[in-house]
């Protein structure tokens, strides 16, 4: 499928991790854990608006 070019927000994403990462101090612990949890919860925000559009 044709890929979107230079998209701000790819599918499944509202606030990209790289954008959030810039706001955080240097992560002293498990960076991957912080990233994973951020992305999982961010995906709920994505699903909310697209389900509003498609299902409701």
């Amino acid at each position, binding site marked *: 499928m044709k890929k979107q070019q230079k998209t701000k927000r790819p*599918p499944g994403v509202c606030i990209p991790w790289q954008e959030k990462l810039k706001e955080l101090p240097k992560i002293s612990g498990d960076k991957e854990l912080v990233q994973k949890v951020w992305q999982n919860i961010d995906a709920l925000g994505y699903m909310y608006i697209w389900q*509003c559009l498609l299902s409701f």
Partner: protein
Amino acid sequence: MAKDMEQLYQQRLKRYVAAMRNEKSDMIPIRPFVAEFTAKYAGYTCQEVTHDYEKAFAAARKCAADFDWDAVVSNMVYVWTGLTEAIGLKYYGVPGISIPPTTGFQYIEPPEEKAFMKPDEYDQLIEDPTGFLYNVWLPRVSADVSAMGQPTSFRNNLSFLKGGMAMLTYFNAFGKQNELLHTESGTVSAIAGILKAPFDIIADKLRGYLGLVTDVLERPDKVLAACEALMPHLTHVALSGADPDKNVPIGYWMHRGCVPFFSMEHFKRFYWPTFKPIVEEIWAHGHQVLFYAEGNWDAHLDSFAELPDQSIVYHVDHGDIFKVHKVLGEKFCISGGIPNWLLATGTPADVRDYCKKVIDGVAGNGGYIMDASAIVQNDAKVENIKAMTEFTRDYGVY
């Protein structure tokens, strides 16, 4: 769960899946898309099943337990108006509030000049679809959400909190509902996930049908680019809700992209090139798509025939099911074709005759699922639904 109930479930699942793979099983599976009919049968009003999803779930389970059906949609009265009211969505006629409690919910399209997306906003949508939906679209469709740059409010803040929690509660409840359908009546949950075509969604929720009719003539490149921008998102949402076991299909609800709502030229320029790759991508992941061809899509059967074998199930509403079978029957399973008007106004004998005609015409080699033409609402007679079910069980044995 009783062992015989599990056996019944497995038997029905096998039968349903075999038909969807365009194969022949022991008998024709029955999978009626019963919506407000469930309320009528279970003794609820449309308001009750639309506004209280637990009652909708209970009504669906009661029908599943009382009729010998292989699969049903867990809740075909899908739009829970408790949720839409919590968000403040403006585009619904809500049973018991703005329309009579005995009428099914309605979608209200705004007049062209009040479309939820303006004709000069295509670039914003194309650049960032998700941002556009949150920042521009949602404040227009919700009575509570504040527009960007406007003062926020208590109602604005609550809309997101209540809407998000309500949506999560509702979606999570489907897991339990599907489990109860399985254990109480051995019934398969018929579909999983949702898909709409980019072109349809622009007409349905953004520009409106009349707005899009204008746009395909006045700004066709923008329309095409917007469809392309929506493609990866609609694919992602569809796959996110798909059946992890890859048994049941993703429901694809087809609206107004066909002739005569649009010309064949427009279908081939906008609709099909931006939808076909979505189906191919989903099929590459191992999921079928159920084409719920509301209205009459017969003019486009040759396009649908381009798709890979078994990649879709094609549901017939007002189309000519015998023509559909001729064009698509070698490649895909077909469902539906029993007219809703017949179920509402005919006699059981009429229904049996029509079912025989359809079964004789399209089901001989398997690959057919018995169903009404469109979702079954509260105008259908109970005795006619029984006749459709019982006749298919008696006559539809291979």
